[in-house]
């Protein structure tokens, strides 16, 4: 637990407006000068089911969800099907109040809507006893009643914000501004009135607690956005003007954002019959010279396997995004996991030749999506951005200047018509699009685009000769395979020189290491800071380049530590396996801390996991798994 921070959790049912209310709350705090981060948890259900969002706010950069929360606004699930009965999944209406009870920190505030949750039920869960034990400040308020007075029950969210503001003494100015900006007419008026009434009612209660919301200020203009926003904006700024897709959680978010903006950016979005078609369309558009993307989540991405292989074989550039959720099969659709790493690396027949980036946070979602497009089109190779439900939905603030970058729509290695005239042609008349040894000594053989004079060639998923004609000649086979695979070495060198996708954290000369990839990186970094504060000597490395793997960089780092704990959100230590396979050693140095219960790590969990691993103790927590190093 750290001091001087607010972790405000708003909990209700799906459909109660929890998400949008939390977004406004986070934005208002950002505008007031704080740094914010949100953690979102919701069921695979449209109406009803416990859903919550935590907004963590500090006066310094905040990179991760925190440990538990110190303020709970429990609205109750207004869509519960059997509010009064013990249902299959427990007492639904009440769940937003009592589920994860134990994570409310000592001395925390628990504000609940007694307009929805009646006293008898609340007695049943022994709220009073729990509160006494933990020193909680329980504040029942009739938020529904306040909202109803001004017309609509749904405004009990706004009442909850007003009451929160009063209890935390943070003023309502920023909330009022947001209501004024987002709503108009009667709706605006009613919400402003609800906000004020709830604020006054809560002020009168005079809740005596120890939470101090810090005050802060920003050096430069801030924006608040999600990983899905950042991936989409990265694609648009790198000239992507074509997307094809099929809805699937959590990838749908990127698809939606792109579909909303592509028309105004002069592009095309296509919702199609399935993910095979989605990936195939992206290839078709790219074949014509358009920078294109598609994407999906686990099961949908599985359908893209064959088009993905076609892109590798025909050297058609394309960017695919894969938003991981808990598997196998349909798994847990709205819960994060990092278990599709091997899936994206190896799916599709034959030796894979692809690029895979795993951005660790929203900033990297933007830069690495741009890098994925640049590499894909320059090297004529599919590039995959793999992320998860956690990054997809979490919001955090950052300087607007991060996005103040030039657009780049360069279609990559495509010849001009004049260059095609001078380029090699086969006696059949076809342009030699797949040269064994391209002129400049690179492994990229530049392409033509339909419509260019004398650029005709055949693209085929069969092995082919330089003009694209199907060929099973052994020498040609070796030459083409080598050129396609050697591109990966060129890309590795390019990334080493230009990208810097790996992130280092902590004291360079530390004895121990925490190795992490993708969305768990910044949580692990926070844990490493605490471990150092606790007297340990630890540093961390966050890896984003999954393929081509940064062998030298990671080897050097692993060489510099006595032992490394690999932290990832899956059950079979996939990233550790990849690291061992790519480097070919250090199997005896790497142990794993794994979590796959549908919830991302909290910093304190990594601290505990690390401490018990170096002390040789069993892991106390049951929601994680420790996997010892090889030979242990």
């Amino acid at each position, binding site marked *: 637990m750290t001091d001087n921070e607010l972790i405000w959790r708003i909990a209700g049912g799906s459909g109660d407006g929890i998400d949008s209310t939390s977004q406004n709350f986070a934005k208002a705090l950002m505008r007031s000068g704080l740094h914010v981060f949100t953690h979102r948890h919701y069921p695979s259900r449209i109406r009803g089911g416990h859903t919550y969002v935590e907004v963590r706010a500090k006066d310094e950069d905040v990179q991760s969800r925190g440990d538990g929360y110190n303020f709970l606004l429990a609205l109750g699930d207004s869509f519960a099907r059997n509010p009064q009965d013990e249902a299959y999944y427990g007492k639904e209406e009440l769940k937003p109040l009592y589920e994860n009870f134990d994570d409310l920190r000592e001395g925390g505030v628990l504000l609940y809507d007694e307009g929805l949750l009646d006293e008898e039920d609340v007695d049943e869960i022994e709220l009073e006893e729990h509160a006494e034990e933990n020193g909680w400040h329980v504040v029942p308020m009739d938020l529904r009643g306040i909202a109803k007075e001004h017309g609509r029950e749904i405004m009990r969210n706004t009442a909850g914000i007003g009451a929160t503001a009063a209890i935390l003494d943070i003023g309502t100015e920023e909330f009022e501004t947001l209501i004024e900006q987002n709503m108009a007419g009667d709706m605006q008026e009613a919400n402003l009135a609800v906000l004020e009434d709830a604020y006054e009612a809560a002020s009168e209660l005079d809740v005596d607690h120890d939470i101090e919301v810090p005050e802060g200020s920003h050096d430069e203009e801030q924006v608040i956005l999600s990983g899905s926003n950042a991936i989409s904006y990265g694609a648009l700024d790198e000239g992507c003007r074509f997307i094809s897709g099929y809805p699937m959680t959590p990838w749908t978010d990127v698809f939606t954002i792109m579909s909303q903006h592509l028309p105004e950016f002069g592009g095309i979005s296509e919702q199609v019959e399935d993910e095979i078609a989605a990936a195939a369309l992206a290839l078709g558009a790219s074949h*014509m010279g358009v920078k294109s993307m598609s994407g999906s989540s686990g099961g949908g991405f599985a359908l893209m396997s064959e088009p993905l292989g076609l892109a590798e074989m025909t050297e058609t550039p394309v960017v695919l995004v894969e938003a991981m959720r808990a598997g196998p099969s349909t798994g847990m659709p709205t819960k994060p996991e990092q278990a599709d790493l091997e899936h994206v690396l190896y799916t599709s027949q034959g030796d894979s030749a692809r690029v895979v980036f795993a951005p660790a946070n929203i900033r990297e979602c933007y830069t690495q999506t741009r890098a994925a497009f640049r590499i894909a089109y320059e090297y004529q190779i599919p590039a995959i951005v793999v992320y998860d439900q956690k990054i997809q939905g979490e919001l955090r603030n950052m300087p607007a200047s991060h996005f103040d970058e030039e657009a780049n729509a360069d279609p990559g290695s495509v010849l001009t018509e004049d260059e095609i005239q001078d380029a090699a042609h086969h006696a059949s008349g076809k342009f030699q699009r797949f040269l064994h040894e391209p002129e400049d000594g690179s492994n990229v053989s530049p392409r033509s685009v339909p419509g260019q004079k004398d650029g005709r060639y055949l693209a085929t998923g069969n092995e082919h000769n330089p003009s694209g004609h199907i060929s099973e000649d052994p020498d040609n086979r070796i030459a083409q395979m080598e050129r396609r695979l050697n591109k990966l070495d060129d890309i590795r060198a390019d990334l080493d020189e230009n990208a810097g996708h790996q992130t280092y954290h902590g004291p360079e000369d530390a004895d121990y290491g925490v190795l992490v990839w993708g969305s768990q990186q910044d949580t692990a970094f926070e844990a490493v800071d605490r471990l150092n504060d606790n007297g340990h000597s630890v540093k961390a490395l966050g890896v984003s380049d999954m393929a081509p793997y940064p062998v030298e960089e990671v080897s050097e780092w692993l060489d510099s530590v006595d032992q490394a704990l690999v932290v990832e959100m899956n059950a079979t230590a996939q990233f550790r396996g990849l690291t061992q396979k790519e480097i070919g050693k250090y199997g005896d140095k790497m142990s794993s801390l794994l979590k796959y219960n549908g919830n991302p790590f909290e910093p304190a969990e990594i601290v505990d996991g690390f401490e018990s691993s170096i002390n040789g103790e069993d892991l106390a927590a049951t929601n994680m798994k420790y996997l010892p190093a090889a030979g242990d």
Partner: protein
Amino acid sequence: MSAFSAIGDDREIDRDEFTPGIEPQATWCPGCGDFGVLKALKQAMPEVGRNPDEVALFTGIGCSGKLNSYFNSYGFHTIHGRSLPVARAAKLANPDIEVIAAGGDGDGYGIGGNHLIHTARENHDMTYIVFNNEIFGLTKGQTSPTSPKGHKSKTQPHGSAKSPIRPLSQSLNAGATYIARTAAVNPNQAKEIIAEAIEHDGFAHIDFLTQCPTWNKDAKHYVPYTDVQQSDDFDFDVSDRAEAAEMMRKTEERLYEGEVLTGRMYVEGERPSYGQEKRSIGEMPEEPLAERYFDEDAEWERTYDNLLQHHK
């Protein structure tokens, strides 16, 4: 000015331009109906006035998929059943290119059947040629979606228990706006139908009967055949849905009774193509999207200027 000078190049086109300078040895068996498709397609090109560099031919997998190996234009030999989704994106990306897709009956009516339904529904302005030989040829003679009921093969040793698919009726239901059946043994009609299909502004589906002398000897050579537009026995209005549906049903059923009916089955001129529909709702640029990438003066929007204000 277009970055693609082959597009709209106004000159006399010779059908020989579509024959590669050195012809690869065809993988098709002697007497294969696929030669008939290739020949008819080459003959149709001068009629529609398109030159090799402004034509893109997308194929699936199977004997039919080799079509673009022997046809001198831009070609994309894709994966089994997926020529249509690749092809229709190509058309959206650059509507100035003449887009043709081709595949077999297994490719188009079996594994890729879902794509046929949706491509027809959307009415993309392109031509789709299905080589229908009622058999899987390249994998050596297994029962296909158009094989007759009772068809015996190594994978259906007791004869197929399934009724064959109705490709024409299905296409009509799905929304295709030009539907015809022709046969390799009828080269003149085939050429005319291909030319009409290419010039049709919408999704044109040609079910092309291609005899397989190796694996489907029972189907003979689709002779004698009847052109329903030439015969007095079949008086129907090709633009009338109900009459077309009736004609298609008859055509599909009689094939298995040994009567080969060919010709235009349905032609609908009014319905806008998908590109037109998308443009009319502002979801597709007026200028071909592909051109923009090759225009040095093109200006590219930035999210910083256009979208970031929503996040402040």
